[in-house]
């Protein structure tokens, strides 16, 4: 259920003032998208969990810098993306292969769907992090190249080029997997 913006505003104010309940309510609403974004950017469950942890541990203080001009979910996601990208650059991050535990349903449409999905997941996970970031932010999060450029510290043109390289690699990986 999409949260009411006004509810968010109240929760934000309370979380900023240190309310654990309000932080919990924000977590209940937004932990899932934050986790999903971090996982997509990092390709590792453990790393994504660390980002989720850091984002909500630091949220009450970070909210001091939230000026409420834009939507809270996109603000939060930008922070999560930054935290994830920062982590991606760090040496200490854990590496992992993607989920493929559910691949063992054979001989049905469902099995094909699972197989296809895990091929996408494998292809995504196989991308270098700099390319994956662009493809995730553009294709899944709807960022503009200008926004991606600002996040990654690259030019718009570089973002476009990376996106295309990522798509080409994804296509090759997907077609190779069939």
């Amino acid at each position: 259920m999409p949260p009411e913006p006004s509810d968010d505003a109240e929760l934000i104010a309370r979380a900023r003032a240190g309310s654990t309940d309000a932080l919990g309510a924000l977590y209940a609403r937004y932990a899932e998208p934050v986790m999903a974004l971090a996982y997509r950017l990092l390709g590792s469950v453990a790393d994504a969990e660390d980002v989720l942890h850091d984002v909500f541990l630091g949220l009450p203080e970070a909210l001091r810098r939230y000026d409420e001009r834009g939507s809270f979910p996109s603000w939060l996601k930008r922070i999560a993306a930054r935290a994830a990208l920062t982590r991606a650059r760090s040496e200490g991050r854990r590496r992992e292969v993607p989920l493929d535990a559910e691949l063992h349903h054979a001989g049905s449409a469902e099995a094909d769907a699972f197989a296809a999905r895990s091929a996408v997941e494998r292809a995504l996970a196989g991308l270098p992090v700099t390319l994956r970031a662009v493809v995730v932010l553009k294709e899944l999060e709807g960022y503009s190249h200008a926004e991606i450029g600002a996040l990654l510290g690259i030019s718009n043109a570089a973002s476009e080029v990376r996106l295309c390289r990522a798509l080409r690699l994804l296509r090759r990986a997907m077609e190779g997997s069939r």
Partner: protein
Amino acid sequence: MHSMLTSIASLTARFRPHPRDPALKRFADGESASPEERACIARHLERCAECRATLSWVRGAGALLRTARTPAPPAGMLERIAAERAAGERFILPSADERRAPRSAPAWMAAAATVLVAAGIAGTAGVQRWRNGSDASRAPAHAAARAVPGDSVPTGSGFLVAVGVLPAEAYAQELPTEARGTPPRVVGLDGGRLRAGRWEYEFAEHSEKGAASVPERGAIVIEEAEHGGRPAWRVFDAWRGHTNDMAETTYVDRRTLRPLYRRALNVGYSHYDVAQRFMRDSVLGTMTGRGRVTRIARALPASGGPYAAGEGFFVLFFQSVVLKPGWSGSVSVVGWGAVPSDVVYPVSIRVLGEERVRIPAGAFDCWKLSVRVRGEPEQTVWVRASDGLLVMSRRIVRGGSNQVTLVSAPSTSTQPAER
């Protein structure tokens, strides 16, 4: 005839260059750079099956990628976070709206962008000990344990970050370094006007309805010292509250206030150890952590001065400059310097007028100033007109304000608070 035309078309297509990938992708997204680009690609597509296949794949990519599963948040995470927050742990996140990041951010940025404060380690006794102390040797126990012989003080970063006069580390890293439209550089800083002592401040958030957060306390201790055989001020600043646990030592030239040396321990969540030496037109040093050492070697061009280092700098600064109506000036705050984008932050300061300020510590006749770090929201700062005592700093935020207020000043260096 028709088939001949078709084969000519496909032949032509073979010799015509395919559109470049970004142009094809823009076409797919309906974002062609120009009507000409769009028309040119449309014509090419009519003849080129290969590009049509690419276009089709590219158009379906988003939907395909959305089928990739993502894991759910792990059970117990919220409880873990709540317990850690209750124990005093914090995490300073990067800002959502930073400007462009450096092209290749090294690993330490991850840490510089975040400060994990394990206040629980030192415990309440540590806080008390430190608060009651008058010098660096009473710093929090866990931080003191990290101190290096010869450096009496542990450090991090934070007083003026909390004040809001300086940007938090998290976004300090990514401010542009060029200074355009800044007021003239401050000249004639006179360290001779400065006296030793201890200043205490309190940081709180105030809502429009008058509610205030539990205040955090910070202190700045200025002492006469020597560094490299020359007279210096040793400036210790520390901030200890429910969000930050920070301290830092800086030596500045006794007369000009030019930074000579800065030591910061516990920087970032990886507890980086930063040492900076200011030599003529350069800052040199190391940032150590995560098992590696990053060398710091950055130019500080004379045109960018005067330079300031250390969170306590503005307490010194306002005591060392003669303000008057219409005064404006700029200084540059030096960052950690381990990456090119974190070297210099121009700060513009302007006298707005005079104002009498009443705070719990007393009533003060002040200069009201605007202080602006490039790219950051403006701060309003009040300093006592008679001696430059930093009385209050306020930053308006939505729904209220963040405020730093003087709690106590050394009676030896300033007149007692005017009641």
